[in-house]
């Protein structure tokens, strides 16, 4: 990630932007909730006050870009890991009921393992196989988790 000004960290700008956008999201949504009256706090008061606070903090942090210096080194964003880990977590949530514990663990572990450049395809499969066995032993045999070992997709 190239930086236009090596003396300054854009981090403050980013954090400020994240806080401000979250504050706007929560604040605009919370406007519709009742603020409360007669000494009573309604469901809207807390979110509204907190959104305003977050907005203020976001602005203050963003402004630091122009005065604070930083020694943070920019390291590459692990895009491959971001995509693969998120995909494998999504698949776990989406398909674990249908596929069952063993297949979903195999798929998710293999996908996640591939997000490291140091894992070859074969290594990922080996890690996945070991994890499938381990999870079967720990969660199915040991803890009796509700997920079936092999899901209805396999017609068992």
């Amino acid at each position, binding site marked *: 990630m190239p930086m236009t000004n090596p003396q300054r960290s854009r981090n403050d700008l980013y954090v400020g932007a994240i806080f401000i956008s979250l504050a706007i999201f929560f604040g605009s949504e919370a406007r519709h*909730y009742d603020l409360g009256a007669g000494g009573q706090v309604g469901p809207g008061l807390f979110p509204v006050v907190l959104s305003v606070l977050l907005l203020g903090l976001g602005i203050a942090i963003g402004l630091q870009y122009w005065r604070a210096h930083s020694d943070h080194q920019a390291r590459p964003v692990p895009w491959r890991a971001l995509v693969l880990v998120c995909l494998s977590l999504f698949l*776990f949530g989406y398909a674990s009921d249908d596929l069952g514990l063993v297949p979903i663990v195999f798929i998710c572990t293999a996908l996640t393992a591939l997000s*490291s450049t140091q894992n070859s395809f074969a290594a990922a499969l080996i890690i996945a196989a070991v994890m499938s066995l381990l999870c079967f032993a720990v969660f199915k045999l040991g803890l009796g988790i509700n997920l079936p070992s092999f899901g209805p997709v396999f017609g068992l």
Partner: protein
Amino acid sequence: MDLLSNLALGFETAFSPVNIIWCFVGVLLGTLVGVLPGIGPTATIAMLLPITFTFSPVTALIMLSGIYYGAQYGGSTTAILINLPGESSSAVTAVDGYQMARRGRAGQALATAALGSFFAGSVATLLLAMAAPPLASVAIRFGSPEYFALIVVGLLVSISLAHGSMLKALGMIVLGLVLATVGQDAYTGTPRFTLGQLELYGGINFVSIAVGVFGVAEIFRNLEDERGREVGVKHVTHLWLSREEFRRIAAPVMRGTALGSILGILPGGGHVLASFASYAVEKKSSKHPEEFGHGAIEGVAGPESANNAAAQTSFIPLLTLGIPAHPVMALILGAFILQGIVPGPKVISSQPELFWGIVASMWIGNVMLVILNLPLIGVWVKLLSVPYRALFPAIVTFAAIGCYSINNNPFDVYAVIVFGVLGYALIRCGCEPAPLLLGFVLGGLLEEHLRRALIIAHGDPMVFIQNPISAVLLAVGVIILVVAALPSIRGKRDEVFAEDEG
């Protein structure tokens, strides 16, 4: 003396072969399952509850309690080794424990956690035996105004969790507080920020946030540049504490034990404050506050002791009043009822062997845990020699299973994605995850108690000042603010509020 004969009865019960075996099985299972990332004591006990059906009540409860405090030990192991706290208390341990592990001091961190927990567990159990009923009456005095004031103080004090930018730490706390408001409002039924998703009516799952911002975000950090630097945790040099380190942890362990024992008794949210408060106290009283956040052993010793002491004393409201202090206690209450016993004021007198048996077994269990855990440190540390490229897929998978198994709800796993990415983005930019979790945990309680206090007072805000305990606590809060503000007014730097970017 009454206490002695009661304890004799208790130990007689607890030392029966059946009970001692199941106590051991309980603490062993608790430790092992607590070690699994993303699986805290709640999930563990929920999954193992059916096993205890066929047991006698004493045996069942001895085993379930064993799982509970065993999982407390195990949970800190995961927090230290792979930065993955399974519940709010070990989130604090992760802060300095994981930094110690990264510096090759995992053994010392684990030993400190085990020894601190043992000391705290023993003292708190003794307290439970000697003074459960009078302590319970203290718990009863605490109403919503008192809790509100207590949590305000807790929040103010705990800003010291941050070791980097003060503004960013405040931002993370506020973000945590906002996230805590997601879900159906308990007072009016208004759905807040639910985006039309019924899954969000119950709010965001704590474990999803913790696993996301601690565990998954840390994995992304480690995968940033795999070739350029060493990934994961350094190999371990020593397993045991040096004489110097023993000296350093003695006072934090004792302070943590005292703090945790007191806060654990309060069923309305005291126990969650225990480890946060202890961390803040240690940082404040340390001669080297700058070490905190970078592997200070006191930052492990204090919170771990406080956490374990609170875990034991949180049995007090349950055993004496029938009031569960937190979800795990609610599960144990369920176990009592399954056994045909409704815990309450009469249990101590009507079922003495049950009450004293459990108390005695807690002490025995703590001894077993320390005997079990000290040799295990070597095993856990060996785990670190598993190459990181094989370890992190396992962490992600375990975490997914753990989150999923709490409610069998895919939504909790999706939440991990959101918080993993958000947490990574924020941490990459110099924010820290612990204040966010603190805000999330305390946010719900803060709003709950503020609003309830006002409802009960029919809308009169003076209730917070007229009530002596809450007035004193709020005054303490004001003093903390003033003291914190003074140095910056004078233009002096205060470590806690330092503006330097970590």
